[in-house]
């Protein structure tokens, strides 16, 4: 096994159950600083459920999740972004009626301060915040090559562009850990390649760890430093991409039918 630096996020023995269905069954793993960690598994393996635990949308019935050594399980969902965890959603969850600019600006909510009175009266504090949001939104749009659609309503954009908008919105909070749920879904071969390049760039420029849920094995195996494989809510295996690709149980889970 290659050497991994200290973990920034630790998932410990997490259990989640939905009225009889065990979605996660004692899953444990850690993600290291600046690492791209691939989380793979057949449909229904529990990958999105794990993301929803990290976002505090689901509460595990057992286990713990530690961010820099502190449990996040007492925090409300809206505190997660402030703590440095950003995310994108499996089928894109943009603010459909808002412009691309406003979508990215909302991404900066956790990074900025303000209050209703100051905002409505355009006090200097709010005007400074607004100027900062404007500049950084435009920089992110530049980086993700969506500057030309900043004033377009998000719902009217093609799927691939929406995904880039969603990534820009997630990056707007300068996350230390970025959760990406199937970013390659619905993209063509060339777009997948560009996405991989972009993720590597994001990792170095934003100094962020990336937790990547993906069915596109080519992408996962080419950019992940470390891979965790789930099946039926349980961790099957964990290791380098090469180790996982050669792992008999992983091969079986993917080829051996199941409920996929």
């Amino acid at each position: 096994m290659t050497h991994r630096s200290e973990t920034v996020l630790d998932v410990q023995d997490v259990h989640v159950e939905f009225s009889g269905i065990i979605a996660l069954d004692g899953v444990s793993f850690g993600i290291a600083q600046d690492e791209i960690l691939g989380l793979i598994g057949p449909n229904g393996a529990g990958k999105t459920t794990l993301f929803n635990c990290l976002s505090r949308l689901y509460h595990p019935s057992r286990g713990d999740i530690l961010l820099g050594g502190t449990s996040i399980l007492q925090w409300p969902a809206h505190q997660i972004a402030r703590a440095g965890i950003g995310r994108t959603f499996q089928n894109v969850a943009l603010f459909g009626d808002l412009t691309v600019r406003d979508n990215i600006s909302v991404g900066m909510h956790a990074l900025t301060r303000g209050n209703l009175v100051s905002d409505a009266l355009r006090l200097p504090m709010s005007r400074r915040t607004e100027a900062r949001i404007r500049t950084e939104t435009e920089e992110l749009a530049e980086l993700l090559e969506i500057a030309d659609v900043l004033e377009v309503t998000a719902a009217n954009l093609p799927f691939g562009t929406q995904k880039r908008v969603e990534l820009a919105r997630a990056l707007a909070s300068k996350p230390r850990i970025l959760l990406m749920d199937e970013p390659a879904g619905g993209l063509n071969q060339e777009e997948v390649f560009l996405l991989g390049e972009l993720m590597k760039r994001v990792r170095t420029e934003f100094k962020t760890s990336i937790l990547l849920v993906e069915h596109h094995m080519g992408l996962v195996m080419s950019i992940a430093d470390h891979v965790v494989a789930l099946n039926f809510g349980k961790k099957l295996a964990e290791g380098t991409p090469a180790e996982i690709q050669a792992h008999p149980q992983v091969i079986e889970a993917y080829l051996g039918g199941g409920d996929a």
Partner: protein
Amino acid sequence: MMDIGNTSTRTDPSAAIPARPGIGARFNVIVTIVLLLVLVFAPAFAKNFFVFQMTLWLIYAIAILALNLLTGSSGQVSLGHSAFYAIGAYTAAILLNETGLNYVLTLPVAALFGFVAGFLFGFPALRLTGVALAMATFALAVATPAIIKLHVFEEWTGGVQGLFVDKPRAPFGLPISDDAWLYYLTLAVGVLVFLFGLSLLNSRTGRACLALRDNPIAASAMGVNVALYKTLIFGVSAAIASIAGALSAIAIQFVAVDSFTFHLAILLFVGMVVGGIGWLPGSLVGAAFVVFVPNIADGISQGLSGAVFGGLLLLVIFVLPNGAKQIATWLSAQFGAK
């Protein structure tokens, strides 16, 4: 099974359509200036009774704007804004009768009371969305007159008798009628409230509300405290409705229980829909509809005025499901295209 991760929005991969066509911007400025000029000079050409009608129109526009700010930004529907309007009206009337407070200063006090009431009501309402929230606010509207008539409050509210208020005189020896003065006061308050709402919508706070309307889960993942912003915007909306109520007490010089039934709440809601949800200037159009159309309907047929009003409302909803906003968007695109 619903998966929280799969909160997909509409996917319409059609051609990209700009949301705020910059080309229409100059048209908007021209329309705004013309409208302001008309509003400022109208009293000079109108009889006092019509000036009074215009004041009522502006007061309704402020109350409808309050509702529009709530529904248009956060998506919360209220059929109970008559309650906050009543709070403002009684606050102003009681302050004017019991203390020597200047009538203009009753407005911020009314706003504060309205905000607190709205914020407090917004908390239990957090659990409710859509139809359930509409019902809960409606219950508030239905209960309001009975609460005002309660024995414990009667000493203050005047119960079924209502409260009379002195008519403010035009100050500084201004050479205008008292009615015109009230009109200008209302217009000034209206412009301030409008600017307040506009800045709010285009700020970090406003975007947080718009975001939680479109996708509450994604909004909270971006750090938006959904519960807090929902109650805050409810409070702001109630505060503005309360200001409208206070202005009505001052303009009509009489506050009566019967003015604050659920009928008022429904009228405000109708006004919002006719003006176009989420488009603040539409509040003026919506208010014109609910203030003037009943008069016109009366003129057409006394006995059937309700039917005429209903018919016109049906017509508007069929032809313009997005209200006046639809006409504005269309005009803006027509005239804006260089």
